[in-house]
């Protein structure tokens, strides 16, 4: 049976997370069809897509979640697929939840693997826990958890393109993006930084972050923080790393005065290396870190900064 995947794209080139979703969709077996809104999207054949259903419709020039779900629903009726798969992005999860609500079907969000018998493994707690679950319906709706499945190419030709003329009701277009406000980017983005210097309760105050900023400056790093810090108003929430903050994946994550709660680790476990600076040699962060320095961060961080300055000037 056919599998249908939603592909998100930026001006025609497919998003990495959608390519990962296509890999998960292929694991479900069956010919792979894709839906893209706007387009055309190129290169999908190499990821196993046989047919690309393309919606080019002025009414969908701006994102409208219910309308995306309506397009998926139309294809479900047409293709009778065994599954609909999207990326576990804001829009992917949203579109599939809409589809699930329209059909009153179960929907498994953020899946990392599929079994033979309708079981899936999905993430809970932002990735700190896994759940094996059974989807009790013929049509399976799921999204692929970001960065848990690798995108993979196949020896396929170019995907055949079929225009899709969506049947949309007024209700499908009530909620749509009516305005886009640009915000100028400031400094190094936390999500993309190669090094993150992050501080927790142990930093002690908003002023205490001065020494972290100084170190970050030398390393071309972004400054991050724990939730305790945002709740205290020492840093804005945009700096928060974790399950309900930003997920980071730097080469080095330096956790200063952070205990290592699972919800914090959920945001930094994508780091290649973690260095913990903590006065408590028993802190849980040590069982998630590669390196540790034990002691008072107020002494250690400035010492590292000084040492780095020395090394950089020699």
């Amino acid at each position, binding site marked *: 049976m056919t599998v249908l995947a939603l592909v998100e794209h930026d001006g025609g080139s497919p998003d990495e997370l959608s390519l990962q979703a296509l890999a998960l969709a292929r694991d479900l077996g069956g010919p792979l069809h894709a839906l893209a809104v706007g387009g055309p999207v190129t290169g999908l054949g190499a990821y196993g897509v046989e047919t690309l259903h393309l919606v080019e419709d002025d009414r969908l020039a701006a994102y409208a979640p219910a309308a995306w779900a309506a397009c998926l629903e139309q294809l479900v009726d047409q293709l009778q697929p065994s599954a609909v798969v999207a990326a576990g992005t*804001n829009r992917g999860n949203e579109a599939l939840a809409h589809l699930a609500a329209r059909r009153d079907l179960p929907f498994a969000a953020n899946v990392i693997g599929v079994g033979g018998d309708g079981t899936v493994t999905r993430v809970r707690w932002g990735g700190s826990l896994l759940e094996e679950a*059974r989807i009790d319906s013929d049509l399976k709706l799921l999204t692929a958890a970001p960065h848990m499945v690798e995108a993979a190419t196949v020896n396929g030709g170019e995907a055949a393109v079929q225009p899709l003329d969506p049947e949309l009701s007024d209700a499908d277009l009530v909620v749509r993006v009516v305005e*886009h406000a640009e915000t100028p980017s400031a400094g190094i983005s936390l999500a993309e930084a190669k090094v993150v210097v992050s501080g927790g309760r142990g930093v002690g105050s908003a002023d205490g972050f001065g020494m972290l900023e100084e170190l970050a400056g030398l390393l071309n790093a972004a400054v991050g923080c724990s939730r305790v810090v945002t709740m205290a108003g020492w840093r804005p929430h945009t700096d928060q790393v974790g399950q309900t903050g930003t997920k980071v994946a730097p080469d080095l994550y330096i956790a200063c005065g952070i205990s290592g709660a*699972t919800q914090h680790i959920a945001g930094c476990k994508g780091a290649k290396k973690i*260095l913990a600076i903590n006065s408590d040699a028993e802190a849980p962060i040590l069982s998630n870190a590669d390196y540790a320095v034990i*002691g008072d961060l107020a002494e250690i961080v400035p*010492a590292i900064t000084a040492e780095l300055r020395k090394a950089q000037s020699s």
Partner: protein
Amino acid sequence: MRILVCVKRVPLTGGKMVLTADEQALETRHLGFTISPHEECGVEEAVKLVEAHGGEVSVLTLGPAEAEEQIRDSLANGGDRGVHLVTDSEEWDAQATAAAIVAAVHADEGTGGAYDLIVFGNESADAGNYQVGIRVAYALGRPVATGLKGLSVADGRARCEQEVPGGRDIYELPLPAVVSVLEGINLPRYPSVPAKLRARSKPVESSSPERPAPQLEKVRLVVPPGQGKQAEVLGTGPEAARRVVEIMREIGVA
């Protein structure tokens, strides 16, 4: 404005995840409980709207008897009344949760009038299904916007802001509407001692819905591999700085 906020009781796990022997739940014997930060911000957002426009904030939870604690916490943060859908300790899937919330909303609106706004967290802290709010919106035939980092209400419409790469997307929803919010939309207040005391005597209505068979059925929980490595201690105190810089050079970041 009448606003309903939906919150879910979850364990406050510490440094690691420990499962019960049957792998069906987290071992919570030594844990406290809380709600998702997204939902805390949902409560704060509702309270701020009512402070500005007048009205009433109701807080709903579907959960065990102990979940009254999370209702009372939310009432201490400015909610006016609670709605407790009491379950045995078994987990409900998203479809069943949404259906129970919808039934409670119907019953509540029958007596108290329509909710202008129903506020959800973007995703629950534990299950992370990303869907209960959307299901409720469909069942009630109301518009829904998710993942909000900004919300304001004027002239019967909700202006909803979502953070997207490079900026913000804006939606305008006619009320009554459903929204889900993200942590960062506001900075929730800390409850004062008098507010905590007042919360004890605010009304909480409870009922006990039947749990339907789940359609997304949990088979078992698994702690992902990788938990429990042990860091190499580079040293104690500022003397370790040299070794740290050596490591930074080794991994190519300094």
